[in-house]
């Protein structure tokens, strides 16, 4: 117990609070100019927007995938199930260069998409693709165990009580899955907002257009603008903290409502 707290403070808390305290070295005007500058605002928009889209895609696809993996039987299912964790285990830099190679104009998918007018690599869509990739397992992995635990008898009961398949899905199963879905969404979203490795390769990193906030922080750092980088980091931390808080509240609410 004591050890836990000490280790936690050493590795996590002290460095984090140091970062917070450090911004006090800046005046409020300086801080605001950095945090609310047009380039920073554009990067928040992209970071949050793309993460939101990616998390939403992952929630829908993740729910479907979890359902298929738990309820159905098909050849290669075990392999697919094992592969789902790939984005967790694959280093983000590898994911980044690979996705870029796939979606670039001369890539495996890019060469088919580009004639259709869909440019993925080096656009905002590319950012979404990368963030979808890295957030892919979250919803699947949070929904799967809940789905496994749902007693078939509940559905049978619903069916005997006259519910058709859609009704019993919508009103019996879905509410059970709701908290897990929210958790998965939150995790995928939180991960996507902070993601750096996979995005820097595919985004093209154009200021104002395809520059995510973490990249802007790194840019500031390489220019030795530590104060600016910290200010942005604080802005990002507060945003993700607020989002997590909101999602926790939502979860608490959905649990209270559906439990």
């Amino acid at each position, binding site marked *: 117990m004591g050890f836990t707290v000490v280790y936690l403070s050493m590795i996590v808390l002290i460095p984090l609070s140091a970062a917070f305290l450090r911004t006090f070295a800046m005046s409020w005007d300086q801080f605001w100019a950095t945090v609310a500058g047009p380039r920073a605002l554009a990067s928040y928009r992209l970071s949050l927007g793309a993460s939101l889209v990616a998390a939403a895609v992952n929630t829908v696809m993740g729910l479907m995938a979890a359902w298929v993996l738990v309820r*159905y039987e098909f050849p290669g299912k075990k392999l697919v199930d094992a592969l789902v964790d790939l984005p967790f*285990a694959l280093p983000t830099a590898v994911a980044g260069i690979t996705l870029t190679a796939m979606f670039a104009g001369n890539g495996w998918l890019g060469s088919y998409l580009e004639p259709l007018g869909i440019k993925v690599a080096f656009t905002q869509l590319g950012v979404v693709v990368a963030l979808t990739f890295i957030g892919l397992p979250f919803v699947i992995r949070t929904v799967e165990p809940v789905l496994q635990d749902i007693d*078939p008898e509940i559905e049978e009961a619903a069916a005997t009580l006259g*519910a058709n398949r859609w009704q019993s899905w919508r009103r019996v199963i879905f509410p059970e899955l709701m908290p897990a879905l929210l958790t998965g969404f939150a995790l995928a979203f939180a991960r996507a907002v902070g993601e750096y490795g996979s995005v820097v390769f595919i985004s093209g990193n154009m200021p104002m257009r395809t520059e995510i906030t*973490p990249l802007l922080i790194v840019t500031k750092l390489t220019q030795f603008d530590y104060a600016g980088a910290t200010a942005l980091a604080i802005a990002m931390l507060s945003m993700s903290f607020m989002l997590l808080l909101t999602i926790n509240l939502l979860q608490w609410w959905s649990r209270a409502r559906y439990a």
Partner: protein
Amino acid sequence: MVEPGPLRLNFMEQLKPKITANQRGGAAVNEPRFVRVGLIFAVLFFLGVFLVLPLVVVFVEAFKKGIEVYFASVREPNAAAAIWLTLLTALIAVPTNIVFGVAAAWAISKFEFPGKSLLVTLIDLPFSVSPVVSGLIYVLLFGLQGWLGPWLAEHDIKLIFAVPGIVLATMFVTFPFVARELIPLMQAQGNEEEVAARVLGAGGWQIFWRVTLPNIKWGLLYGVILCNARAMGEFGAVSVVSGHIRGLTNTIPLHVEILYNEYNSAGAFAMASLLTVLTLVTLALKSLIDWKSKKNTTLSPEWTIRV
């Protein structure tokens, strides 16, 4: 008086004696066949594009210029140094986090104390902090401009843009893996077995080695494997603290980036393929553990539907 919640079906509807084909036997708890097949294909297509195709691309790109080029790029001294540094980092960060993870999970699941949920939240923190920010806070703390920087410089200790910084940053980002894996597991198991052991006269360590550890061994292994994969593959945090000195402070992922930015695509993918192999081994081990540990609690076969 019960509030009509969303869970409750319309009462009148429940009473209606509607018997359709859809409600008899298995069909009532199954989806129509076209829904099943459609769902499976949609999911397989999505996962195929996002999971299988990238794997294929890594290896194809790595071997594009032939096997000689592949081995040359892996054996090159800077590459070898990067591989060594990656292994070293994982070798330090993973065991430290195992000890911490077990201690934390133990404290959280077996004891009651104020601020417990705060502690759980804090453990998760590195997951919700951007890797870039994780690296940044260490630069702020230990860098030359940072708090401890001047003191460290006086004593000739170099943390940032050096190996210790990389190890620290890696420890930070991999810190929740083991604890996170164990906390729910140990909470679910409760402490009845530990209490029983205590009643039977076992001491603290005896309880841990004989009762707790065997109970959590699969979860622990699971956490360790994921922790290791992340430790070896971490990019964002390490990239901020490393300084990218070739042959000295470059881990494999950073080396991948450098090669890629130099348009040495074959080299970059060759290094990437090493990490991909690591990933595949990780996933294989993970599935093995899944299979081993869940052997007794598999789903009843009637509950998985054949298409």
